[in-house]
């Protein structure tokens, strides 16, 4: 569907074939009284005065309309842009010391990022998001599927590389869980909105400690429920192949399954964390120091064994917490 074909259709058939286009134009305050007129004639007949009231000129309106048509088709193109790996070619740290590393992150794997506050974790993520080509302060280069990406993709919404999930994030919109996820699905132009929305809410319920249903307003979800919904939504609906998780809390959400869901959806998961359980769930971890990648540590067999022990300790704390909640006395911790 091109701009030209749309322009040459009359309003009545546009309303039938492409109601989204008509709705879009109505947002600008356009009114279509004569349905037999073509859209093109209709736009031509708009007076200077009407356009000034609408706050847009003829040219920009056409550009936006074309963008809208492309956007509708674009999200399917976005899915075709299949990111299987991101390769990071090292630059240098704050002192200019070379990083001397090349590391490839594959779809469906988890990498944790550790390092003190201000060590350069955000910059690393920034480099990936920007698809740096030695044009950021670190001098790093990013390859997508082994190739140098088209830098114009930096500004393309459909190809945003990084989706973020952090502890500070909240839902701010006044809508129910179902309404909002539907809105998100519609903006992604997915085919079967109803099913995907139901899947996301079911999945979020599996991850959250306490259940909730689709009618729950987003703003009254608990911290854990919000996080669970955000993760499920990212897994199913986000266009971005890389998911950054920043210091996610461990209360009220099944972290292990949350990560597994993202892995199953072929996301490249990056996790900035100092929680030993989360860090050891990753296949490898990047140690950031003084703005540079200082070390890459592959999670060893021993560490994986220790993870089990750590989970046992964690569960113990969790059960203590529950006892406290139920008004018990913590006179022994066995």
């Amino acid at each position, binding site marked *: 569907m091109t701009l030209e074909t749309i322009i040459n259709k009359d309003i009545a058939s546009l309303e039938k074939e492409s109601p989204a286009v008509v709705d879009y134009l109505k947002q600008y305050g356009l009114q279509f009284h004569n349905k037999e007129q073509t859209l093109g004639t209709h736009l031509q007949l708009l007076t200077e005065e009407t356009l000034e009231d609408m*706050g*847009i000129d003829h040219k920009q309106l056409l*550009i936006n309309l074309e963008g809208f048509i492309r956007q509708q088709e674009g999200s399917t193109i976005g899915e075709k842009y299949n990111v299987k790996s991101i390769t990071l070619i090292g630059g240098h740290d704050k002192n200019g010391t070379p990083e001397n590393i090349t590391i490839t992150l594959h779809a469906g794997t988890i990498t944790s990022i550790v390092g003190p506050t201000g060590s350069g974790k955000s910059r690393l993520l920034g480099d990936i998001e920007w698809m740096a080509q030695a044009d950021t302060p670190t001098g790093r280069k990013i390859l997508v599927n082994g190739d140098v990406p088209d830098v114009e993709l930096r500004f393309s919404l459909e190809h945003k590389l990084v989706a973020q999930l952090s502890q500070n994030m*909240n839902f701010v919109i006044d809508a129910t869980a179902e309404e909002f996820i539907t809105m998100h699905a519609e903006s992604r132009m997915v085919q079967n909105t109803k099913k995907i929305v139901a899947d996301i809410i079911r999945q979020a319920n599996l991850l959250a400690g306490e259940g909730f249903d689709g009618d729950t307003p987003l703003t009254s979800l608990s911290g854990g429920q919000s996080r669970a919904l955000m993760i499920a939504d990212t897994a199913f609906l986000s266009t971005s192949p890389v998911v950054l998780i920043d210091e996610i809390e461990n209360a009220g959400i099944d972290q292990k399954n949350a990560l597994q869901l993202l892995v199953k959806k072929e996301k490249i998961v990056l996790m900035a964390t100092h929680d030993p359980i989360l860090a050891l769930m990753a296949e490898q971890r990047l140690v950031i120091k003084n703005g540079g990648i200082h070390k890459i540590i592959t999670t060893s067999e021993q560490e994986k064994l220790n993870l089990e022990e750590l989970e046992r300790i964690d569960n113990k704390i969790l059960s203590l917490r529950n006892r406290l909640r139920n008004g018990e006395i913590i006179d022994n911790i066995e």
Partner: protein
Amino acid sequence: MYSFARKRFLIAASFLLKSISYGELLYVCQIYNMFSYIELRSICLSGTVNILPKGNKNYTSHTANKHKHQLFSTIQVWHNNSNISIIKSPGNQLKQGVSMKLITVSGPPSSGKTSILLKVIRELQRGGKQAGVIKFDCLYANEAEQFNKINIPVKIGLSGNLCPDHFFVSNIQDGLNWGLEEGFDYLFTESAGLCNRCSPHIKQVLAVCVIDNLMGLDTPRKIGPMLRMADIVVITKSDIVSQAEREVFAFRVRQANAKAKLMFVNGINGQGAYELSMLIQQATETVTLEEAKLRFSMPATLCSYCLGETKIGTDYQVGNFKKMNFSEDKK
């Protein structure tokens, strides 16, 4: 009258000056204190005069004198015909090779314009560049301190009871002159879009619109030329809303402006500011705004209330006003 006379003056001067070099022109004008150097820049950089290095050896005081007379007599004719006064040079030296990029930054109140500017200018400063800011506001602006703290010269303009947009456009050339005199590499204007119909962007001048994720998902549809005509749309406060809301918001911004570059910048920790500064470096240079055009007309009114009327009622509504139709639904 003034600008017409000025235009004629510039055209004639360019014509006359074609035979002499930039350096020679400077020489003439400095000796005879004829134009401000800003006017000279507009003449020279308009492309009608070849810019040659200063100090042509063949250029003698005799030829300079001849040129002076030519210029003076031409100006004299215009002066008599058009009532303009000859502007005396402020005595500034033109820094050769200096060029300034003007960038208009606008956005709804509290969307993060100042924070973004502070971070972006810091990145530009790291690259050895100097930037100044003109902050346009309505009643109150206290950002000067924040800018001054990191050595950013700032001028503040308060529009008071005038339309801030109209106030902006009637001061922008003077603001540009200030920037040129200060010798900045970059001059940013910051203006709060106090109504959604604000239209501060100028053709050929890089236009940035700053909006934030907390404004609600319908906001991109409600903002007019300020957002729709921008070259770069910066989205802030992304760190506190969910990824899903961010995606829907950006999707709708894209619907409001199909061709702008969308950037997510964090005004608090500066994430994305470096990348934005890279885009800003690609802006074109602005020498003068005389005869430049706004990208879209500004909101208009010219009615009795503009002139201070406070009484309500049909008898008091005079001039350009618009009536709502409340009876349509009943038919």
